[in-house]
């Protein structure tokens, strides 16, 4: 347990009823409310407490700290759990809420928008004809901030298809469990948020120094980073390597697993030219299934772009395309994307497969740490617990 100073927490949980548009906030100053450090356990408790049919968003206690790769948040709905990475975890925590509970079903299509401790439902009937990228861009444009984090459905999610994938800031990879369908069933096209708040640490200087030393030790051990190729052999292929533009980290990660491939302009072009030049790869099963089906790196990337725009889980789409017989082509991918009802969820794990040891994934994600990074460097609970005093002001055990 830790004290109620709310270090690295906002001390606020909000429940928003999509059916009525009303929200209810819970100030959490009683330390017993945080008696479990795992955000997954807290989210599960909130799900039960809100009737069991809610969407829960949350962050780990270390999310946003300087512990390496402390970037993760989570979404839980109907027993399905997905991480949210990139900058979404940090921004979610800085939005003013530790957990957001969305219950009920909206009477019309729209999105949830929260920032600075304010939450609202924004009707968005016009989004029906848009893909997930257009929706993300529209939300950012309408709300006047290009760095709003958007967890977005495409048309597949609107229809509640079981293979609908929730797209995180244009990219797919986090959702391998059809979370998009969970939003669609509640008439939600997206959940958008921006973090403009601030968080305190118990001992800022000590936390910084400890995290710095840990990160340097990791970097020294890991050696040179090669983006996605540092985590999967798939990205070591020549046709993939030729298209790499730059490697991109999530918040606080010193050893990124994300590589952006440019397929619509010269990969080494550094200037801001094409607005949609390619795709950010971090989806191991998606790329694996694409290569397995015979697509080269360029067509695999285009296939993943098409799936992301549709809000469709790519391994599921490509598996269906392969099952139709003959060579898998982009035309065949288009054909499958036009018939979502025929596609079953492939249930191929991405971040969930990071660890070979049961429980490690949940333990890591529950703290707000990226499972992929921590499986690479070795997830040691004792080592993480050494941050307890500088972070939270008290000892905690994991």
């Amino acid at each position: 347990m830790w004290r109620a100073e709310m270090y690295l927490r906002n001390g606020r949980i909000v429940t928003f009823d999509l059916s009525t548009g009303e929200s209810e906030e819970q100030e959490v100053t009683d330390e017993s409310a945080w008696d479990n450090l795992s955000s997954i356990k807290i989210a599960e408790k909130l799900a039960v407490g809100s009737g069991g049919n809610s969407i829960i968003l949350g962050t780990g206690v270390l999310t946003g700290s300087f512990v390496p790769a402390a970037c993760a948040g989570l979404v839980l709905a109907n027993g399905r759990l997905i991480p949210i990475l990139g900058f979404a975890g940090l921004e979610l925590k800085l939005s003013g809420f530790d957990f957001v509970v969305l219950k009920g079903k909206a009477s019309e299509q729209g999105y949830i928008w929260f920032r600075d401790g304010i939450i609202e439902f924004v009707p968005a009937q016009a989004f029906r004809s848009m893909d997930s990228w257009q929706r993300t861009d529209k939300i950012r444009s309408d709300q006047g901030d290009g760095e709003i984090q958007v967890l977005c459905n495409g048309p597949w999610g609107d229809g509640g298809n079981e293979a609908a994938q929730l797209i995180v800031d244009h990219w797919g990879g986090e959702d391998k469990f059809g979370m998009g369908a969970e939003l669609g069933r509640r008439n939600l096209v997206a959940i958008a948020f921006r973090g403009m708040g601030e968080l305190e640490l118990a001992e800022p200087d000590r936390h910084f120094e400890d995290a710095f030393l840990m990160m340097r030790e990791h970097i020294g051990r890991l050696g040179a980073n090669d983006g996605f190729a540092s985590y999967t052999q798939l990205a070591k292929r020549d046709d993939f390597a030729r298209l790499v533009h730059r490697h991109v980290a999530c918040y606080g990660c010193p050893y990124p697993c994300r590589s952006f491939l440019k397929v619509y302009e010269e990969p080494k072009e550094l200037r801001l030219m094409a607005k949609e030049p390619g795709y950010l790869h971090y989806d191991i099963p998606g790329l694996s299934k694409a290569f397995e089906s015979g697509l080269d790196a360029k067509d695999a990337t285009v296939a993943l772009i098409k799936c992301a725009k549709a809000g469709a889980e790519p391994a599921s789409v490509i598996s269906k395309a392969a099952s139709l017989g003959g060579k898998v082509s982009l035309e065949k991918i288009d054909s499958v994307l036009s018939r979502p009802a025929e596609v079953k969820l492939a249930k191929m794990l991405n971040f969930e497969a990071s660890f070979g040891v049961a429980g490690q994934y949940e333990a890591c994600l529950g703290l707000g740490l990226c499972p992929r990074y921590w499986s690479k460097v070795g997830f040691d609970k004792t080592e993480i617990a050494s941050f307890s005093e500088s972070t939270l002001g008290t000892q905690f055990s994991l």
Partner: protein
Amino acid sequence: MRLRIEPLKCICCGLCETVCSLNRDSVLTPMTSSVILHIEDKANYFGLVLKTKSEGLVVARPEGVSTGQQAAGSGGPGAKPILLREPCDLCGGEPKCAKICPTGCIIVEG
């Protein structure tokens, strides 16, 4: 002493932003930092904007570094523009952004 930025080494981790606020205000927030990570995610275009006392704005784009200009963008009107922020104080002599940067993108000179 000054900070030099090599933008192509940037991996967009954002640690420089949060550590800046930690040093300045003892809190974690990208909203008060003197350095801003500018991201256009769909185009994979990102770089840093640093507000300095001696050189004005240092705009470190992927295609090169320029000084004395206004930032092209800092997250729109919903965010706090860099022109309203305090300039870098070099953390009193040991810049934390340069220290925490995992790739050596931000370098202390002089």
